[in-house]
């Protein structure tokens, strides 16, 4: 009975693992954004100023990063590294979009082409997972 239940669970985890990785890339990208924001806000001049790093952005960013890391480890239990790792290329896209929506940066047509190509590449990795 217990074996049946754990087979069902790991079958579910097999299907959830790659979506979990995608979610992890989101947490990682946002985490990096807030860590950078926190570093900029801290303006460390002297060693005692390191306490400034305990501002909310920096800590929040680290927390997001940590969640992303935990999700990565969980996904790695169920999927191959050569499938999980390239999915982090989605981070390139999240960073570009974060720049666009939160930092007022602009994306050229070439950049948008890059977004499409990265998505294509990551999709192929997902396909390759089933194939290999």
């Amino acid at each position, binding site marked *: 009975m217990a074996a049946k239940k754990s087979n069902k669970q790991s079958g579910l985890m097999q299907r959830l693992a790659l979506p979990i990785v995608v979610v992890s890339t989101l947490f990682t990208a946002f985490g990096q954004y807030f860590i950078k924001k926190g570093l900029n806000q801290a303006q460390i001049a002297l060693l005692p100023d390191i306490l400034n790093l305990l501002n909310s952005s920096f800590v929040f960013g680290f927390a997001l990063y940590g969640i992303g*890391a*935990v999700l*990565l*480890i*969980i996904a*790695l*239990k169920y999927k*191959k*590294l*050569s*499938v*999980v*790792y*390239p999915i982090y*290329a989605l981070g*390139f*896209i999240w960073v*570009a979009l974060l720049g666009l929506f939160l930092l007022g940066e602009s994306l*050229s047509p*070439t*950049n948008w*082409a*890059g*977004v*499409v*190509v*990265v*998505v*294509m*590449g*990551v*999709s*192929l*990795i997902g*396909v*390759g997972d089933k*194939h*290999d």
Partner: protein
Amino acid sequence: MIEWYFMLMMVVATFIGGIGALFLKKGSSEANGNLLQQILNTKILIGFFFYGLASAISLVALKFVDVSIIYPMTSMSYIWVAIFSNKFLGERIGNIKITGILLIIVGAILLAA
């Protein structure tokens, strides 16, 4: 002109990052017990350390070389991980995955332009 040693720095950084990923995979496969024990086992900690080291080296390189060069070079880590997963984890890297990785590298170049 981009100094060749910053290119070499990125090659080294991505190599180290790839080793880190290898440790993360090994650590996660072998971990058992409750969630906290699984997250904090030695191999995983080593993996994150190497990943942090790779990031630090990349950040240093970023101070000297434009992001439009650094960005695509970080995607070299996907090549390293493919090689390491094949050699050390016995994972098959078929043509579909290889094409995917090549597309990712091209995409990174376009995104950084």
